[in-house]
């Protein structure tokens, strides 16, 4: 391989490392506080603007949510300093497996791992009863 090309690639790789380290040092990601009911509804309004929300459940650490909209489950979970949103059949959401205080919701192209409270089972009674969240 061309020696100049190798030097150029090595230099570029070093620059990438430097810039990534600098961005980590700077701590200038978006502030992403844990979701509360208001923030969760705002997130749903952005990600699913045409869907009504029947019931809302927020993960114990505020890093995700599950909402029922008819026969669909609207799911959002934190990725970096933002959120990823997907939907899946409501029945599949209720059937999701939980272990070690984490429920695992499989969507078409991603998995939401949402924290449960101490002693909380999946699905939470609130979702089963259809109680509307505050």
């Amino acid at each position, binding site marked *: 391989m061309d020696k100049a090309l190798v030097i150029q690639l090595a230099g570029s790789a070093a620059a990438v490392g430097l810039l990534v380290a600098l961005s980590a040092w700077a701590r200038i*990601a978006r502030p992403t506080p844990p979701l509360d009911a208001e923030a969760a509804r705002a997130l749903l309004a952005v990600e699913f603007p045409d869907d009504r929300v029947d019931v809302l459940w927020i993960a114990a650490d505020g890093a995700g949510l599950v909402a029922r909209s008819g026969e669909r489950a609207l799911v959002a979970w934190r*990725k*970096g300093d933002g959120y990823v949103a997907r939907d899946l059949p409501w029945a599949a959401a209720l059937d999701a497996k939980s272990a070690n205080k984490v429920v695992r919701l499989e969507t078409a192209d991603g998995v939401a791992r949402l924290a449960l409270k101490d002693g909380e089972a999946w699905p939470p009674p609130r979702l089963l009863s259809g109680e509307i969240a505050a």
Partner: protein
Amino acid sequence: MKAFDPVQAAIPFFVLAVILEIVLARMGRANARYETRDTAVSLAMGLGSSIAGTLMGGVIFAASLWVWEHRVFTIPMTAVWAWVVLFFAEDLTYYAFHRLSHERRFWWASHVNHHTSTHYNLSTALRQTWTGGVAGTWLLWLPLSFLGFPPAMVAIQKGISLVYQFWIHTEAIKRMPRWFEAVFNTPSHHRVHHARNARYLDANYAGVLIIWDRLFGTFIPETDEEPVRYGTVRNLPSFNLLTNVFHEWIGMARDVARHPRHALGYVFGPPGWSHDGSRDTSHTLKAKWLARTARNGVQGGPGGES
């Protein structure tokens, strides 16, 4: 003789500019957000893209040379008028390439990874495709060589356009002077292009000159009433580099395998097209947005100056 490559020459400037943006943001002197893993993906995409470009470069240059040998006119590389004409012709070609890359899935599969960041900073500019050579979008530039522009001249102008487009990937600059916004692609115009808001989808395809969008009806101004949210309609669920590079190609192949009778639609239809209408395209998302705004009594269509 090796032709001058504006992009390679500008790499040290790119690095310094990113450092400056990060440091100014850290000091609270510039509006910029950087998430470490997002930045890592953007920069790794840039590095991989230059490797992919090197691998494909010979083929593309050889094809351009072959076409130029069958040219209609002989255009001198030393003439000023030739550079002026090429500036406009190349920029129009870029507009066509960019619009195609958003409106047809085959080319979107290659281009989408430039849009997967949920951030908009100078590192996003470097989040470039690895599969553009395979997608064949470079063919769109061949007519310039057929007209008679030497391939080296076309390559240089293409590089100048890419270098120009680096600085517009920032939130640190709100608006440029009015006359500049009217003619050139700017951070404001390009923020709209990187938006995932339904209102802003499929707009502002410009390279250097925004006039093409104004001319062909694809211009949408940035409005203060609706801040831009960056990324794709369905943001990727992970920071995995290879997922970022290949996810749309894989999705397309999967759709074709599942619905071979509708293969053409899944390959050459607009992104989000499905044979049963179960998915959203930019068109349907905009229609839903318009219906919502009409329902809520909000003024202003997607192209409305506000």
